[in-house]
C-alpha cells in the first residue's frame, strides 16, 4: 500500500499530504508574491527584445551551464546537481501525484521501467555531488565562499531528499518483492532490508516516504528565503540579460528630479531581479581587482547587501540603498573593469548598479575633494587635468601638426584624448602614434582645442549631467567635421565614442589604434627592423579587451615586430587584471588596501620581460608608476604599442 493511502490516527494520509502541500504552497507563493511586488516597485526597463539571442543565451548559459566551468570541479558538481534537479523532477511529479491520489502513478510518466534507472543513478550522482560540495565548503573552504548556515542547510536538504528517496525506494521494493532490476540502487537496498519483517518494511517505507515528502515541502518553503532563490530567479535573469553593448552604461534621465539611485526603488526591476539571482558563489569576488587589493569592495557582498536591504521589510516603505548595506568606500573602490560581470554565471550587472549608486552620491555632492576638483575642472575647461583648452594641441607643436579646418575631408580624425594631449606620458603615445601615421602616409588631422574630454571620467564617477553635456558638445563638433573614421589610442575614449555616443545621436566609425596599426601592418604600410630580440608582456586594457573584445589586434601588432617576443602573463584577455586606473580611479581617492597597479605589475613582471606593453594611456601611467615603486624602472620599460611600433619601424 502506498503511504498516502494509509490512515494515520484515523485521518487519511492523502488528506494530510494535501494539507501539508497547501500549507507549503501558501508560504512559497506568499513569499514569491512579495518578491515580485518588490520587483514591480522598481523602474521600468525593457528586456524582451532580440528573443533569438536571448534563447541562445538561455541554452548556453542555463542549460549548458557554460560559465560555471571556469572552475571545473565545482562546475561539474553544480552541473550534476542541476541535471539531477531536472531529471528528478519527474520523480517529484510522481511523488506529488501519488500523494494526492493515494498511490496512483502519473499517466505516461510514472512507473515506466526505462525511467527508473535514470532516476536511480541521478539520486546517487547528486548525493555524490552534495558530499563533494559539503567537503568543499567545510574542508577546502575556497576564499570566495562564505561559510554560512544557509549553504549547509540547502546541502543537508538535498542530501536528505536523496537519501529518503533511496530508502523509501528500497523498503518499497523490499516490501513488494518487486524484481526492480531497473532501479539498481533501490534493489540493492531492498536486498539489504530483505531480512526485516514485512510489516516493519511497510512502516519504514511509509516513514521514509513521508520524510521525503516533508523534506521536499520544506525545501519549497526554505527556497525563496535562501540563496537557492536562484533556482527561480537565475534562469529568467540569464534570459533577460543585457544585450546592450558591453561597454555602454544606460543614460540617466536628466528630466527627473534626481539622477541615480538613492533608494532601492530607483533601481530598475531587472537590477533588482539580479539581486535575487545571486547564488553567493563569489566568482565575482575572486576576480575583482579591488577585492584582491584589500579594498572595501566585494561585488558579492555588494549584491548581498543590496538584497538584504531590499527584502528586509522596512516599515517606512522607503528603502534607502545605503544605511550600512553598501559603503561609499566600496562604491568608490570599483575600477569598473567588468571582470565580475564577465565571470558571473547568472549575468548579474554589477557595474551598472555601482554607477547608479555613484550617480546618487554625486547628485548629493558626496565626493572626495580631489574628485570634486577634477569634475569641476571638467566642467570649466573640458579636461580633468584643469589645463587650458588653448594648450590642448601643444604636444604636436614641435612637429607642426595642424588641427582640422572645417569642411576639409580627411581620411582619419585622430582623437587625442585628454591624457594624450596634456599628460607627459600620454603625449609620448600621441607623438608616437602621429609619427606612425606619417610614416604610413595616412591623411589625418586632429581637432586641436575643439576637442574636449569624451566624458568617460564624469560618467564613471556618476556625474551624468556633466557627461551628457560633454558628449553633446563633442558630438556636435564631430558632426561638423564629418570624419570618415575616428582613430583614438585611448580605450576609454574609444568605448565612449563607439558605444556610448550613439545614445545621444553620435554615430561614428571609431577605430582603436591597435586595430588601426594591425590594419596598416596587414596592408604592408608598416615594416619593422630586425634586431636584438626583447621579451614583451602585454597588459589587456579593460575597455579595449573585456568591453570591446580587442584581444587579438594589439597582440598581432606586437607579434609583427621581429625584435619582440611576446610572453603572456597570468590572467590575460577576458580574465585580465585591471591596472587599477579605470572607472575614474585616477581621479578618485580610494586609499584603503594595497594599490592594484603594484599587484598587477608584479604579475606581469613574472614573465621576466624587459618591456611591458599596453594599449591604454591609463594602463601605461599606472604600470609605470608601479615600475617606479618596485624600483625596476631601469630594467623594465612600460610602453604603449604605438611607441613600440614607431621605435621598431624600419621606415623612419
Amino acid at each position, binding site marked *: 500500500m502506498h503511504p498516502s493511502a494509509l490512515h494515520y490516527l484515523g485521518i487519511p494520509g492523502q488528506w494530510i499530504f494535501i494539507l501539508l502541500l497547501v500549507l507549503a504552497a501558501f508560504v512559497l507563493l506568499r513569499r514569491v508574491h512579495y518578491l515580485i511586488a518588490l520587483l514591480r516597485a522598481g523602474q521600468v526597463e525593457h528586456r524582451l527584445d532580440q528573443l533569438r539571442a536571448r534563447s541562445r543565451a538561455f541554452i548556453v548559459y542555463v542549460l549548458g551551464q557554460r560559465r560555471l566551468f571556469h572552475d571545473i570541479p565545482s562546475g561539474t558538481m553544480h552541473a550534476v546537481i542541476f541535471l539531477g534537479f531536472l531529471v528528478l523532477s519527474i520523480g517529484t511529479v510522481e511523488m506529488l501525484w501519488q500523494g494526492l491520489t493515494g498511490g496512483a502513478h502519473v499517466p505516461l510518466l510514472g512507473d515506466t521501467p526505462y525511467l527508473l534507472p535514470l532516476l536511480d543513478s541521478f539520486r546517487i550522482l547528486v548525493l555524490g555531488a552534495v558530499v563533494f560540495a559539503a567537503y568543499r565548503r567545510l574542508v577546502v573552504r575556497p576564499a570566495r565562499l562564505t561559510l554560512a548556515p544557509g549553504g549547509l542547510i540547502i546541502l543537508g536538504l538535498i542530501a536528505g531528499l536523496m537519501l529518503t528517496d533511496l530508502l523509501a525506494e528500497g523498503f518499497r521494493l523490499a516490501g513488494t518483492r518487486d524484481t526492480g532490476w531497473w532501479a539498481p540502487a533501490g534493489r540493492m537496498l531492498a536486498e539489504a532490508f530483505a531480512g526485516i519483517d514485512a510489516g516493519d518494511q511497510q512502516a519504514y517505507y511509509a516513514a521514509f516516504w513521508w520524510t521525503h515528502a516533508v523534506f521536499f515541502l520544506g525545501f519549497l518553503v526554505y527556497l525563496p528565503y535562501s540563496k537557492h532563490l536562484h533556482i527561480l530567479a537565475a534562469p529568467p535573469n540569464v534570459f533577460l540579460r543585457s544585450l546592450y553593448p558591453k561597454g555602454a552604461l544606460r543614460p540617466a534621465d536628466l528630466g527627473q528630479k534626481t539622477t541615480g539611485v538613492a533608494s532601492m526603488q530607483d533601481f530598475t526591476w531587472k537590477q533588482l531581479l539580479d539581486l535575487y539571482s545571486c547564488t553567493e558563489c563569489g566568482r565575482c569576488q575572486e576576480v575583482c581587482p579591488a577585492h584582491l587589493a584589500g579594498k572595501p569592495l566585494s561585488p558579492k557582498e555588494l549584491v548581498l547587501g543590496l538584497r538584504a536591504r531590499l527584502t528586509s521589510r522596512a516599515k517606512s516603505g522607503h528603502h534607502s540603498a545605503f544605511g550600512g548595506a553598501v559603503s561609499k568606500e566600496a562604491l568608490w573602490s570599483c575600477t569598473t573593469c567588468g571582470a565580475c560581470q564577465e565571470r558571473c554565471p547568472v549575468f548579474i550587472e554589477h557595474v551598472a548598479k555601482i554607477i547608479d549608486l555613484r550617480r546618487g552620491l554625486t*547628485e548629493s555632492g558626496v565626493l572626495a575633494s580631489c574628485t570634486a576638483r577634477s569634475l569641476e575642472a571638467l566642467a570649466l575647461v573640458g579636461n580633468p587635468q584643469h589645463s587650458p583648452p*588653448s594648450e590642448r594641441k601643444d604636444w604636436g607643436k614641435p612637429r607642426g601638426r595642424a588641427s582640422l579646418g572645417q569642411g576639409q575631408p580627411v581620411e582619419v580624425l585622430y582623437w587625442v584624448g585628454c591624457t594624450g594631449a596634456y599628460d607627459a606620458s600620454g603625449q609620448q603615445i600621441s607623438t608616437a602614434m602621429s609619427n606612425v601615421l606619417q610614416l604610413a602616409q595616412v591623411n589625418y588631422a586632429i581637432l586641436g582645442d575643439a576637442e574636449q574630454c569624451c566624458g568617460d571620467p564624469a560618467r564613471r564617477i556618476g556625474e551624468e*549631467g556633466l557627461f551628457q553635456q560633454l558628449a553633446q558638445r563633442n558630438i556636435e563638433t564631430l558632426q561638423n567635421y564629418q570624419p570618415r573614421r575616428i582613430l583614438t589610442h585611448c580605450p576609454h575614449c574609444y568605448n565612449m565614442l563607439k558605444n556610448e555616443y550613439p545614445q545621444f545621436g553620435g554615430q561614428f566609425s571609431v577605430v582603436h589604434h591597435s586595430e588601426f596599426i594591425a590594419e596598416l601592418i596587414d596592408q604592408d604600410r608598416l615594416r619593422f627592423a630586425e634586431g636584438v630580440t626583447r621579451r614583451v608582456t602585454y597588459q589587456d586594457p579593460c575597455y579595449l579587451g573585456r568591453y570591446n573584445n580587442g584581444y587579438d589586434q594589439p597582440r598581432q601588432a606586437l607579434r609583427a615586430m621581429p625584435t619582440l617576443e611576446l610572453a603572456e602573463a597570468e590572467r590575460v584577455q577576458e580574465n585580465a587584471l585591471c591596472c587599477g586606473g579605470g572607472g575614474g580611479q585616477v581621479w578618485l581617492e580610494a586609499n584603503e588596501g594595497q594599490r592594484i597597479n603594484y599587484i598587477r605589475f608584479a604579475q606581469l613582471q613574472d614573465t621576466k620581460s624587459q618591456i611591458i606593453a599596453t594599449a591604454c594611456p591609463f594602463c601605461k601611467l599606472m604600470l609605470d608608476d608601479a615600475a617606479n615603486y618596485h624600483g625596476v624602472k631601469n630594467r623594465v620599460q612600460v610602453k604603449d604599442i604605438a611607441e613600440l611600433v614607431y621605435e621598431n619601424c624600419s621606415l623612419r
Partner: protein
Amino acid sequence: MRIAVCVKQITDPALPVEFVPAQAGVATTETSGAYCPNPADRAALEEAIRIRQVNPSAEVTVVTLGPAESDYTVRYCLARGADRAIHLLGEAPDAYTAAVVLGQVIKGLSPDLVLCGARSLDDATGQVPPTIAELLEIPQVTGVIRLDLDIETMVATAWRRLERGKREVVECSLPALIAVESCINEPRYVSLHAMQRMSDRNVQRVDLLSLGGPGQPLTQTVKVSPPRPRPKRVSTPDASLSADERMALLFGGGQSQPKKSGGYLEGPVETVVSEIMSFLQKEGLL
C-alpha cells in the same frame, strides 16, 4: 536667523591670462570664458549652509555683483542650497564702490550674519568685506578659518589665521561680518544636473543702474604690468667640495649635493620627534 553671503564670480585661475592695457586689467586668452565662484566665497556659502543644517530656521541669501555671466555662480549657489539670491547686474570700478553697492543691498536684508570670502582670487584687495562691515556699522572678523556660533546668546567665536601658523580666537556678538579663508571647509560638489534644475524663481535680478549705479571710485588704477620675472635659482655648490665635484654638480643639476645640517633632522625617531616638538614649542605653535 538671516545670513547674507557675498559671492563673486571670477575667471578660472588655472587659465592663462594676458594684460589688456585698455581695460587696465587682465583677461583670459581662452576663447570660451571659464568662470567659477571665487573659492573663498564658496567656502563662505558652504559655512552658511552648514550653519543652516544645525539651525533649520536660518535663511541664506546670496548677493552677487557682476555682469550677466555671473548667472552661472548664482545658479551654483542656489544648487548648493542657498534659499534665494540677489544678482546685482553691473560692474563696480573698484573695491570701495563694490562694497558700497553690496552694503546697500545687504542692509536691506537686515542680516544677523554676513559671510564673505576674505579676498577674491582675481583682484585680491581683501577690502570689500571690511568696507561692508564699516558701512553696516557691525563688527567684523577677517581671515577666519573656524567659526562657531552660539545662536542662544548670538555670539560668534572665530579662529583667525595669523602669520607663522599662529592663531587668534575672537568672540564677537551678532550681527557681525565674518570674512573666511577658503580653507575653512571643503565645499560639497554641486552636480551640473542640480545646477540646471534650479529655477529662476528664487533669483532677484537688480540692475545696478536702478540703484543709482556704482558710485565714484576712491581709487584709480595708474598702471598694470606683468610681474617681474623671478630669477632662476642656481644652486651654489658647497665650497668645501673639490673643484671636480663642484663642476659635476653645476653640470649635473645639483642632485648629488650632500645635505646641509641646517633644518634637516636625522637620527632615531624619538630624537627627531623631540627636536620637532621643542622647535614647535619655541615657535609658540603648540
